[in-house]
């Protein structure tokens, strides 16, 4: 039991992510961080020193695209797992309209949400689009990859298309990093979230507070585990 569970006196826990979902998530997360560091090293001269983490700029040049391939494959896995639960619902608009209460942590003024709230759905869909955009434009910046896809699909990219690819790739990278910051910050700010992606469980109270509709469903399906009171230390 973590400190959080003890402090809040949690006696219930709800499984949120299976082992394979967590492994899938962390493959994407680690490759994202590696892509972020290697990509930023070529984004601005003041960050070129980051390339030393990978063994120099030349290594970054060939490694970054391959990490990108790992991320894309991993992300497809996450997309298949989670997209159904991220489809928009009417309550999402209510949630968004009350974004002030979200930011103030007044969860009691928000509608009951299922597995994902509108903010999480926004992160999911925007990252899905951006990953696709980054992959397509990234291929344009990747000599061997571009040659492969050109021969596969029988086309020849023009220099202006490649210039546009460079610009769009950089812009999409900025957006994806920005949304990633929101994603990580939300997990930090909303205490009790991390255990969902580390051990796979959240406390019942976390579900009650943030995803009550989801908790009700999990209770109905008998997935909530009751635990004995932790003995005093």
């Amino acid at each position, binding site marked *: 039991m973590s400190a959080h569970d003890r402090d809040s006196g949690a006696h219930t826990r709800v499984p949120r992510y299976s082992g394979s979902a967590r492994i899938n998530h962390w493959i994407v997360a680690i490759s994202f961080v590696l892509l972020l560091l290697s990509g930023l090293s070529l984004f601005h001269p003041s960050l070129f020193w980051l390339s030393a983490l990978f063994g120099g700029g030349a290594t970054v040049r060939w490694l970054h695209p391959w990490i990108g391939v790992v991320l894309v494959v991993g992300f497809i896995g996450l997309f298949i797992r989670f997209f159904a639960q991220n489809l928009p619902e009417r309550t999402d608009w209510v949630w968004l309209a009350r974004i002030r209460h979200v930011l103030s942590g007044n969860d009691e003024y928000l509608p009951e949400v299922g597995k994902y709230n509108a903010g999480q759905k926004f992160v999911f869909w925007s990252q899905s689009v951006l990953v696709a955009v980054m992959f397509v434009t990234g291929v344009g910046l990747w000599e061997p990859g571009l040659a492969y896809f050109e021969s596969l699909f029988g086309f020849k990219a023009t220099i202006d298309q490649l210039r*546009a690819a460079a*610009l769009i790739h950089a812009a999409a990278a900025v957006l994806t990093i920005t949304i990633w910051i929101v994603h990580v910050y939300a997990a930090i700010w909303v205490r009790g979230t991390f255990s969902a992606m580390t051990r796979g469980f959240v406390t019942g109270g976390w579900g009650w507070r943030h995803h009550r509709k989801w908790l009700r469903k999990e209770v109905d399906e008998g997935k909530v585990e009751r635990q004995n009171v932790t003995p005093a230390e």
Partner: protein
Amino acid sequence: MFPAIPNPTTEKSAAKFGEKDMIRRSASTITPPAKRQTEVAKLIDVSKCIGCKACQTACLEWNQLTEEVGVNVGVYDNPHDLTANSWTLMRYTEYENPESGNLEWLIRKDGCMHCEDPGCLKACPSPGAIVQYSNGIVDFVKENCIGCGYCVKGCPFNIPRISKADHKAYKCTLCSDRVAVGQGPACQKACPTQAIVFGTKDEMKAWAAKRIADLKSRGFDKAGLYDPPGVQGTHVMYVLHHADKPQLYAGLANNPRISPLVEAWKGVGKYAGLALIGLTAAAGVIHHILQGPNRVSKEDEENAEKLAGGKS
């Protein structure tokens, strides 16, 4: 005849320019020297070119490059495009002049133009991989090149090529090693008709003016110098008989400039991007300071327990 450049002495002499003469260095901030060297230039007089490819051969020879044996597809261009080994290429165009009815064979020696405003250098993310000297030469520094190909996107003339062998970018150096000891580029040395001449940029402009006057007297009233202002001029210039239509010469850019896409990517985009990332991170920190963590309360846990208890 343009006066020939004398052969160098056999005595060792100091290089005429070097690191201290850098005015730009890719992905770096440098202080340019107070005094700029006299700008040099190569002048390619397309009207005098006979298409012998001696310049291509001299370039391979001097730079110790070997081009692959190609295939003949029925045109004179050989190889078919610039490569990591062929830093210069004769491009042949057959042009039927609608005014005179003549068939004109336009032969343009393609290669790096050594722009005063070099797009390759501005696009390069690797510190010191591309440098510009105060005499106007834009040079690639192999040791610092990471092979990313950004220079290819930055170049308004589509010149740099990435080697499949060592994954580094290559292009004409304007024979910076020869110029450093007072010689002209190898292509100029080999040219049998003085279609290629080399000297200071002012000398080249003056020589071009004579050639243009000559061409005009022969009926090429649109003859002129190609020294495009969109890249603040170049250190490789052309004399064209049809200077009003540069695109006739195997697609020479009419008004070359660094692509606005590249300017946006490498200019304002970088700062806007870093600012957006920084502001988002700062917003998170400020929000956490003001708002504090969003904790699950005891009541939440009790409610969950009640809910679970009622169902089990």
